[in-house]
């Protein structure tokens, strides 16, 4: 088990190096930050001067070498727009993004798990049909549109919630719901179908024949066996939540990493874009590892060597 984790960590380093390389070169394909930073009346000398100060006058390969060298020393560079270390800029905003993603995850699970279970058990009834229709709508609506609709209804019309920004729970509720809606729909659907499959299997018939309480049949036997695909998807979806927060944060003026990435791309703030991408990729890799380890807990048949 330990050697498995170690091996995965070594793989992760290569994955992150690959991500860093792609981020480095793609960022540089998008243009020259100096042209954007300086006003139009700056002279060519002033531009060259600033370029030299930022180390952008050197050949690309040399810049890349310096970048990787700094990276392995955990020196992520300074943002050209903010003039601060990129890592501290991101860690400053990360709590807001994690708060939003966490709240979305909780809302999604609280709704999706009971809804999925009940609609699987009551398959074909009006409740099941209702849930499946809502799920269809939830999966089809893009997050920015849901966001604007929510603002229109709950803020402008009913004046129940603030339109955006960060603050107490009342600021959190709309963006978290908008961001979590897609995941909620996906998990409901997945849990329902995998539970239906489990409920029609032989061991469930046996359990029922033994005279076990229905609650125990479903809770202990059926549910546990149908959770594996759900855990996989939840893991992948956490990554999607972090990515999706880019849109949600902009719609709801939520001061997180997503909003900053958009700004950084617009400013061609290379160092900041790279650090953000590497960090988010790192979180994704860790979540994937955790999901793989969770399999062992859920399904004792799985073992890692």
């Amino acid at each position, binding site marked *: 088990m330990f050697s498995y984790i170690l091996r995965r960590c070594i793989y992760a380093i290569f994955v992150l190096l690959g991500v860093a390389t792609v981020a480095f070169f793609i960022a540089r394909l*998008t*243009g*020259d930050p100096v*042209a*954007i*930073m*300086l*006003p*139009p*009346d*700056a*002279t*060519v000398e*002033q*531009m060259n*001067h*600033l370029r030299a*100060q930022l180390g952008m006058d050197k050949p690309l390969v040399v810049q890349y070498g310096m970048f990787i060298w700094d990276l392995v020393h955990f020196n992520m560079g300074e943002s050209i*727009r*903010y*003039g*601060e270390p990129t890592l501290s*800029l991101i860690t*400053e*905003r990360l709590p807001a993004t994690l708060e939003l993603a966490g709240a979305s995850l909780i809302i999604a699970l609280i709704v999706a798990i009971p809804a999925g279970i009940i609609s699987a058990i009551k398959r074909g009834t009006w409740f099941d*049909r*209702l849930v*499946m*229709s*809502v799920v*269809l*709508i939830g999966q089809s609506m893009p997050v920015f549109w849901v966001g*604007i*609709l929510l*603002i*229109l*209804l709950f*803020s*402008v*019309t*009913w*004046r129940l919630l*603030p*339109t*955006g*920004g*960060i603050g107490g729970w009342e600021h959190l509720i709309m963006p978290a719901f908008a961001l979590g809606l897609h995941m909620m729909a996906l998990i409901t659907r997945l849990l329902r179908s995998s539970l239906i499959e489990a409920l029609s299997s032989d061991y469930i018939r046996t359990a029922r024949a033994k005279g076990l309480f229905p609650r125990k049949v479903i809770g202990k036997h059926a549910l546990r066996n149908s959770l594996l695909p759900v855990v996989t998807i939840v893991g992948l979806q956490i990554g999607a939540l972090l990515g999706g927060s880019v849109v949600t944060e*902009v*719609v*709801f*003026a939520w*001061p*997180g990493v997503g*909003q*900053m990435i*958009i*700004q950084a791309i*617009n*400013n*061609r703030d290379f160092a900041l874009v790279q650090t953000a991408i590497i960090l988010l990729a790192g979180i994704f890799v860790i979540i994937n590892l955790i999901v793989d380890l969770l399999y062992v807990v859920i399904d004792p048949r799985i073992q890692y060597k």
Partner: protein
Amino acid sequence: MKSKVLAFFLIVFLVLAGCTSSKSKDNSTASSEKKRDSLVVAQASDAGTLDPQKQGKMPDMNILINMFDTLLTRDENNKLAPGLATEWKAIDDTTWQFKLRKDVKFHNGEPFNAEAVKFSIDRLNNPDTKSPIVELKTVKEVVVIDEYTVNLVTSASDPILPNKTVLFGGVMVPPNYIKEKGDDYFAQHPVGTGPYKFVSWQKDHQVVMEANPDYFRGAPKMKKLTFRVIPNLADMVAATKTGEVDIATSLTPDVATQLKSDSNVNVISTPWIRTFYMVIDTTKEGPMAKKEVRQAMNYAVNVKQIIDTVLGGHAQRVATIVPSQNFGVDKSIKPFKYNIEKAKKLLAQAGYPDGFSTEMDANNLDVDIVQAIAAELGKVGIKVKVNLMDGATLTNNIAAKKASPLYYLGNTGWTMDALSNFQSYIKSDRRYNAWKNAEADKLVDIEEQSIDSKTRLDAFSQIQKLLIDESPYLFLYQLDGLYGMSKDVEWKPNVMGVLNMYNASIK
């Protein structure tokens, strides 16, 4: 069955959405009561830094102008007016002398004097500061004459140095505070001389300021001033309707129309000095190298109609690229009159009776405008393919000389002197030049180097006449600034579009 359920939900949604317009005026009194002495201003992005000498972008300036002062300012008629300096004069060709106010203190109690001016300008021009502000690069030395007199010595004559001290080149920062606390601390906890003092900054969310009771012009009327960041315009409009925000800025004409229907919000349209035009790259071979073609393009576009329809009337036609408020504008020069027949004749004269095909680059936010222009050009046979891209990519392509033969551009003449409008574009060795003309080069040298205003005015006039004749641009308009304001807020925006809130109050 399934389709029935779906239909039910759709109906519920539509009904809910329908409620939006009917019931939006309820809580307005409650929200205006609690904000009596505080004001919330919203803009689309946050400041990058609160060090006024290390920034050069509008969102940063909008916030900082409320905490800092500059040597000179502008009065209601946009004339140069005293700021931290009371008098200014040119002693010789390369020396400007400023007399300072004697009653000014920084927010930390530190006195403002000639030493502070020297420190500020030296810091600005020190390469280690990496300042993107280039306005005062002509200043070679700052000489302290006495405690409240200071000379700025320039390397060559700089006729509009006082104009530049209105901008952030002339911002004054506290020497002892910065020496004691360091640059990084200063950028997070700014201290200036301005009407508002810094309280807190939650990045990408808000900057909070409180009134400076000792401000040298008198304390501002509002006790608390907050700048909120709302990147999405639809969200900003919603927040203005609910009263969370008192002033929404940088509105687009379509959004302004939408806000006008709300009885709690005033939409204000005010002239700005930002001019827009289509650059015609005359340096490449082809139809655009011919002056008749360029004139034809100017005759072919009905600018008045574009202003009235696409921009909702929120722009003023300009003859060339100089806004009407700037020094040097020649009002006797009239803009091109829409004349499609003349355009066709000129095209035929140039050897293109059936027109030609070309491409145009523009920021995707300006899609409506550039497509209207392209359609107008199409009527005389000039088939234009429009390439839309984000603003940064457009800037990059122009700087790298990779842009299409036509591109849509805006320019603010910050110094309110036509020099700023011509600076980067007209002379053939400048960064954004797309038109080589020896006559124009000579005239630019005259207006940039002479301190005599008559000589300069004359040179400006000649450049503008040359611009009309040669038509290296498709001349368009200067845009108005659009703001959405709560009905009870009183505030007058300035022509630069910088959000100076000192005079804002609540009725």
